[in-house]
């Protein structure tokens, strides 16, 4: 299934739809990184299913030539799992914003992780609700003033990196479109990882986002983990680094389980293979109820 040389170029993954995003939105960089990653992975667009929820970033499947499913708010992960279980041969991507993934859809995250389907989940985290024009999001810093928190938010933000590590995600990374090659490489690695892979992208909202979360600031302050000689197989160190979410912008792979656990779909396939010899012919299924 893996091609040695790319069968598709990045442009083959770009659809003709014109993004609705604001000029300068971080999501342009994310979609570019996805084109490059997919080209390197080498699967053709028709073998890819790309699912999203609702929000600015959830428009992203439509800007690719893959089979896209721009579903409802917060439900990208359950739908993506249904697709993967129904056809494990597909390359399945899920994407959305921080509100989609950690607020309305937050309940799906731990359960997706514990099942460990081979799905890559890309969250475009901008700490704000952009599509509905600037409300508080689950990753907004405490005290942030928005149109729904006129006097400053009273809540602590969630920490997506620590969440994912705590739930047991075998692959957790963070990137920014400020480093496009790094982001593309990270997404490619996530896709190639045989199990659930999470990429948190600090993707700035140019319209409602804070000054210190813009591309320029990222470029100035980002700390590539490669430069810190971080060993991604070190889970405790990954936890340690994840605590800096919101204060430091670490980029790169925080954690990569060196012994990938079996995926949900692999276990499901094994169960099917084990039980299929015991099936009654489908047209005789009612014999199960026969009383003699």
């Amino acid at each position, binding site marked *: 299934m893996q091609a040695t040389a790319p069968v598709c170029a990045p442009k083959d993954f770009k659809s003709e739809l014109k993004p609705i995003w604001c000029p300068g939105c971080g999501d342009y960089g994310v979609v570019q990184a996805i084109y490059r990653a997919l080209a390197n992975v080498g699967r053709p*667009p028709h073998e890819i299913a790309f699912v999203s929820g609702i929000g600015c970033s959830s428009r992203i499947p439509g800007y690719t030539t893959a089979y896209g499913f721009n*579903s409802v708010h917060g439900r990208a992960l359950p739908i*993506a799992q249904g697709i993967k279980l129904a*056809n494990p041969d597909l390359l399945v991507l899920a994407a959305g914003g921080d509100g989609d993934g950690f607020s309305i859809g937050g309940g799906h995250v731990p359960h997706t992780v514990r099942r460990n389907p081979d799905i890559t989940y890309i969250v475009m985290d901008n700490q704000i609700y952009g599509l509905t024009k600037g409300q508080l999001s689950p990753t907004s810093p405490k005290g942030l003033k928005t149109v729904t928190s006129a006097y400053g938010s009273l809540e602590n933000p969630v920490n997506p990196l620590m969440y994912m590590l705590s739930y047991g995600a075998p692959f957790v990374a963070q990137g920014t479109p400020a480093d496009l090659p790094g982001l593309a490489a990270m997404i490619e690695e996530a896709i190639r990882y045989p199990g659930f892979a999470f990429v948190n992208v600090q993707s700035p909202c140019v319209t409602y986002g804070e000054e210190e979360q813009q591309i320029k600031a990222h470029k100035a302050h980002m700390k590539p983990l490669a430069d810190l000689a971080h060993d991604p197989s070190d889970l405790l160190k990954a936890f340690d680094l994840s605590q800096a979410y919101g204060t430091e912008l670490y980029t790169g792979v925080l954690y990569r389980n060196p012994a990938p656990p079996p995926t949900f779909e692999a276990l499901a396939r094994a169960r099917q293979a084990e039980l299929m010899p015991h099936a009654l012919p489908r047209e005789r299924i*009612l014999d*199960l109820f026969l*009383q*003699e």
Partner: protein
Amino acid sequence: MTRDLIIGMAGSGGDGIVSAGESLISACAAEGYHAIMTKSFGSQIRGGESSCRVRLAIDPVLNPGGAIDVAVALNWEDFLKFGAELPVSGKTVVIYEERTAVAPDKLPLVGVTPSEVFAVPIGELARKTAGTDKAKNTVVLGLLAGWFGIGQEAIVAGFRKKFAKKGTELLEANERAFQAGIDYTLEHPLSTPRRMERPPTPGQKLLTDGNDMCAAAAIFAGCKFFGGYPITPSTEVMQFLSREIWKYGGTVLQAEDEIAGIGAALGASFAGRKAMTATSGPGMSLKGEIMGLATIAELPLVIVNVQRGGPSTGMPTKSEQADLYQAAFSAHGDVVRPVLAPTCVADTFATTVEAFNLAEEYQTPVIVLSDQEIAQRKEVVDPIDTSRFRLVERRRPTASELEHYVRFRATDSGVSPISQPGMKQGNYLGAGIEHNEHGDPTASGNVHARMNEKRFKKLEPLRRREDLFTIEGARESPLALISWGSSAGVCREALRLAKERGLRVKLLVPTLLYPINEDIYKSFFTSVEGGLVVEQSHQGQLYRLLRMYVDLPAGLRSFARSGANPFRPAEIVDTLRNLSLSLQRRVQDKLQPQE
């Protein structure tokens, strides 16, 4: 000889009353009787009181019936808790535990004198023969077999199967307890014998409940994915599939919540597989948004709602038919989706298969509205010839259609060929957002109107589906019954009873509840002056739904009441009789001025 017998039994949790009922109905099935068994419990998870009713007959059994012919009380306190579900009449034979120390002429049944009463030392017989109180239910089976002639051999054969793995000691103890019951009946015969007539054709019957039947039908229809969340009284659908669907290359996902359950099922459908979810009232409320997504993304999906008493938690273990409005209307935006209802366990097979067929044919969510009564009652079912069912697969694009593939292409039928991930050149964007023919998001009013029209138009062929309606009784009858779901079984028996009492009545049972097929109802109503729409809800939801779409005959009334208060055939016939008299008076009033 007796052709129709209703047995009602109650005891405390450990008495094994339900287990006795199960042994009894298995024996009935093996002997070739038709039978229905319903169970009822107190609200405790374990222990507490429990009861069951078994109705067995030579002719098909259409509903659990009214007053019981045989009452078995292991203690009176528990029996009386099920008063409304186990009504004793002047024709009832009452059997009870002697140790309750209630005198046969002082039974705690206010104002009722049963036809015969037996105070039997049930516990004592159990201890004497099996060495344990636990065999009380087996003694009861012996009593029932002895007095009412229900196949002794079949019951003993059932023991052999049941205790096969538990050793011969237990089997022999049960055989002795059973024989003790029989011996007791020989020493104390009924004053009026009531032995069951032998069924004409023994053997080869199915025994199951509505939930298992629904799940089996899904497998037969080719369902490859189930996503759901446990909820009473629908959970057995998932339980059955978790045992069986893997054998057919399918997968069950017990999701983290109701929304994820239907979401995963919709994902599987997007990936090209037949998929289903099942739930009950509260879960149905949660699934609403994704049902709307299935409508606009034009994806096949079967959603089973086993109705229970509502709103909110309501009465999870009791049957009700009050989710019809929800099935028809719980969607934002302009939505029409087929709603089907089975009327009995046997019918659940055909109805579920039909739901898959409609979903695949029209690329739409389809709701199966079952109810707790059907879903959880055991029913003896005649073998079903599965070869007479046609299975529909979704219309996939041909090679030439894939050359310039347009997912939501406007077609004469409104149905567009549907591709799936993995299919080369079939790539498209599925979406909850309104889209043009290509699947591209749009905010154009014109496109939205055209797409709404398409999504409605594709269901137009349902107007020709007369086979989704059953009409019984005399065609030109002035009196009519309309009923759906489990209430339809009561009406079928009421129809039989009405005929015996000289009333000319016809019955319409819709399998397809929504969209309303106006033509079918109009033509049914041509001869009708009055009648009843019988359903188990406070509002009478089908009656009101019909009023919305069809001009109803002036004398057509709603005959509805809240769940957990099952209808009895006799009360329906009595009400029809009164209605017929009032219609006659109206005719008289019209005649008088001419005289």
